[in-house]
Structures are given as structure tokens and as C-alpha cells.
């Protein structure tokens, strides 16, 4: 649930994390830039082909992308209430009028949502958390912030476990969590949250002492055990991502294919 990294040996797994991060950010920017349905759909098909290269099982993929699909479907369903411009009319049910151009516009928004989702999923399916942080630090993220992020990702599963433990401990003492409406249900979490947070704060205290003991901040220049190396394929991938993005933006500005 927490770490969706899929440990496989595919071409996208070997790619430098920096290239993948740049790719995902570029895709997101590109999505908001493009409003042409044909480009968005072409890009979406391309991303699904890339998804095949991640060798993620279709069950995991469908489960993770379901939330994005749901939002996309809501957009397509609600769109005809509001956007009824254009001809020809496909469906006319009183205030619910589906026109062909309106339908295509709603599909474009749906494609945009799915594109952003699949782009980031490819990144996190194929990049381990430590590689992700290392890549971000190499891209200019401050390394103290990178260290914090690593700590956060490292302790997330542990706190989930701690919380389960405390929940079971409280329930074995006769504490009933299920009663009440939403607000009471949320309040029911307080006897679980307070011990969890107290444990977390003690951990933070110990961690800060560990950091001091390990000589954090002793020297200005930080060295790394494993250095990232850009290979030829990484350079090539970066070049193709950048040129594809620029090409699509150019085509969209010129407006070669109209929606």
C-alpha cells in the first residue's frame, strides 16, 4: 500500500531517477498546456505503452489508477449539463444535452487527468524511494530537506504499524471505535493518536541526537556513498522527452490539428 515500487528489472527501472523525475514534471506541465484532444489521446496511448515497460501487473495498475478514472468519469458525465455548445446533438434529455464538440472537450479533460496520473505512477512504480530522494537532491533539492523526506518515508510504515498496535491495545481494554456519527468516529481516534504522536515525538528526539552523533553538518560539502551516473541511454531518454514535449507544445501553438 505504501511502497508501490515494483522490484523488477526493466529498462525504465534502470533509467536514471533524475530523467524520470524531469519526465514526470514535464508531462504534468505539458498536460495543462495541451488542450487538443488528438495530442492528449496520442500521449495517453504512448504512456500506456510505457506502462507496459514497467512490467507492473495489470491488477496493481488498475487498482492504483482507479481514483483517477473515477474523477475522469465524473467529468465526462457532468460535462453535458454545462457545456452544450456546438452541433451535432448526440443526446437530448431536457437539461442534459450531449453535443459532439462538448463530448470531445470532456474527453480531453478526462485524458488530461489520466495522463498526469499515469505519468507519476510510472515514476513511482519504477523508482525506489531512496533513489527518488537521491535524484531530487541531485536535481537541486537541499540535502537537509532530502534527509527529512527520507526519514519521513522510512517512518511512515512504522507509524502505521504502531497505530494498529495501539488500536488493538485500546480495543482489548474494551474501547469501541465504531460507535457514533462521523464526528464522534473522528474523536474516537484521539485515544489512539495521542500515544502514537507521543511515540513519534520521542523518536524525533532520539533521531536528532543520532544526527548530531553522526556528525551531521560538520562539513559544508556533503559526500555520497553511491553517486548517480548519467549513462548514454539516460542522455538519449532525456533528449527525447524534452524534444517530444517541445514538439507537442509547438504543434499546439501553431494549431495544426484542430479539435
Amino acid at each position, binding site marked *: 500500500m505504501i511502497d508501490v515500487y515494483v522490484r523488477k528489472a526493466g529498462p525504465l527501472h534502470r533509467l536514471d531517477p533524475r530523467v524520470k523525475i524531469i519526465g514526470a514534471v514535464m508531462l504534468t506541465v505539458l498536460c495543462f498546456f495541451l488542450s487538443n484532444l488528438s495530442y492528449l489521446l496520442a500521449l495517453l496511448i504512448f504512456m500506456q505503452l510505457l506502462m507496459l515497460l514497467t512490467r507492473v501487473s495489470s491488477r496493481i495498475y488498475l487498482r492504483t489508477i482507479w481514483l483517477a478514472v473515477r474523477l475522469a468519469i465524473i467529468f465526462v458525465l457532468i460535462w453535458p449539463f454545462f457545456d452544450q455548445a456546438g452541433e451535432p446533438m448526440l443526446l437530448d434529455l431536457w437539461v442534459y444535452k450531449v453535443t459532439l464538440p462538448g463530448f470531445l472537450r470532456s474527453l480531453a479533460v478526462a485524458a488530461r487527468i489520466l495522463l498526469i496520473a499515469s505519468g507519476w505512477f510510472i515514476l513511482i512504480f519504477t523508482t525506489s524511494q531512496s533513489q527518488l530522494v537521491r535524484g531530487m537532491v541531485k536535481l537541486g533539492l537541499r540535502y537537509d530537506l532530502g534527509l527529512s523526506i527520507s*526519514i519521513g518515508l522510512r517512518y511512515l510504515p512504522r507509524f502505521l504499524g504502531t497505530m494498529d498496535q495501539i488500536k488493538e491495545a485500546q480495543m482489548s481494554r474494551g474501547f469501541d471505535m465504531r460507535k457514533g456519527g462521523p464526528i464522534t468516529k473522528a474523536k474516537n481516534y484521539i485515544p489512539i493518536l495521542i500515544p502514537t504522536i507521543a511515540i513519534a515525538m520521542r523518536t524525533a528526539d532520539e533521531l536528532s541526537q543520532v544526527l548530531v552523533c553522526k556528525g551531521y553538518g560538520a562539513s559544508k560539502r556533503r559526500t555520497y556513498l553511491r553517486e548517480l551516473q548519467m549513462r548514454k541511454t539516460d542522455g538519449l531518454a532525456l533528449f527525447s522527452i524534452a524534444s517530444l514535449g517541445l514538439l507537442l507544445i509547438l504543434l499546439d501553438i501553431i494549431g495544426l490539428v484542430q479539435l
Partner: protein
Amino acid sequence: MGDGRLMSPREIAVLGIMIALVATMTLILIPIPATKGYFNLGEAMIFFAAFIFGRRIAGLSGAIGAGFIDAIAAPQFLPATILIKFAEGYVAGTIADVLRERANEQVVRAFAVEMGGAIMIIGYFIYEAFVLPLGFDTSAGIGVAIIELPWNISQAFIGGLIAMLLVTGIEKSYPRIRDLKT
């Protein structure tokens, strides 16, 4: 931070742990029976960080913790979440800091929750209504955003309530938390 100085070991540890806590609480889903929807307690942790550790830790832990969960659950909200949760924590923390001496603590915290919550509610509304359908007729986006609105409002409201209860509870049960304040 901000002036090129590295964070102190204590700040790094607290920020890391708060990132983990925000992400953990974002994963707690509490069902709303009437609507079959869910809300999470991520907001509560952001406000908690704002009251105890101030704006920087609150903003960063909100952006990174909630952003990470969005990246694995709903990446279509990722750009919005990073900006909105940072602003939410930063504003709530600033209000709590600045007004701390001026008025009753609970009143100040409630005000901070209202302002931070308003940023979250309006932020997601704008993202769904105007940014996702960018370049098209945005009225349909407004329709979708209105459907989502009650969830976000109840999430901010309940998050703020839980955070205020938590701060009081933690200060009693774990007084050493004061040593961690930066």
C-alpha cells in the same frame, strides 16, 4: 532555512517525523455513512504541526506528507496538493505564532484553523473548477468542484477540531514535546 543555512538536526528530525505523521493520518479514512464518502485526518496533523512547531514545519510536512500520499493514490491532484497544503500549514502556523500573545489560545487556534481550512477548500475548488479543465469551458469543472465541496469543508472542520484536542492532550501526556520546539 531560507537563508542558505542548513536545518538543525532537531529541525530535520522533527520535520521527517511530521512528514511521516501527516502521511499516516492521511491514510486514516473515516466513512461518512450518509454520503458513502470518506474523509481523512491529514488536516489534523498539519494543524497540529502549525500549533506546536510553527509555520515552516507545518507547511513543509503538509506539502511533502500529503503530496507523497497523493503521488501514490491520486496524482492528478499532486500539483494542487503540494501548493495548497504548504499554504495551509504556513498560514495556520503564522496566525498561531503572531496572535499567540494577543488573545485566548483556543480562539487563536480556531481562527488559524479557519484561515488554513479556507485556503484548502478554496484551493481545491479552484483546481477542480478552473485548472483541470484549463483551456475549455470551465462551468462543468465548477459543477464537479461543487460536488466535492462538502467533503473538503467537513475535512477541514473535523481536522481542526481533532488538532485542537490533540495539542491539549499531547502537552499533558508528553510534556517533553516542548524541548522539540524550534
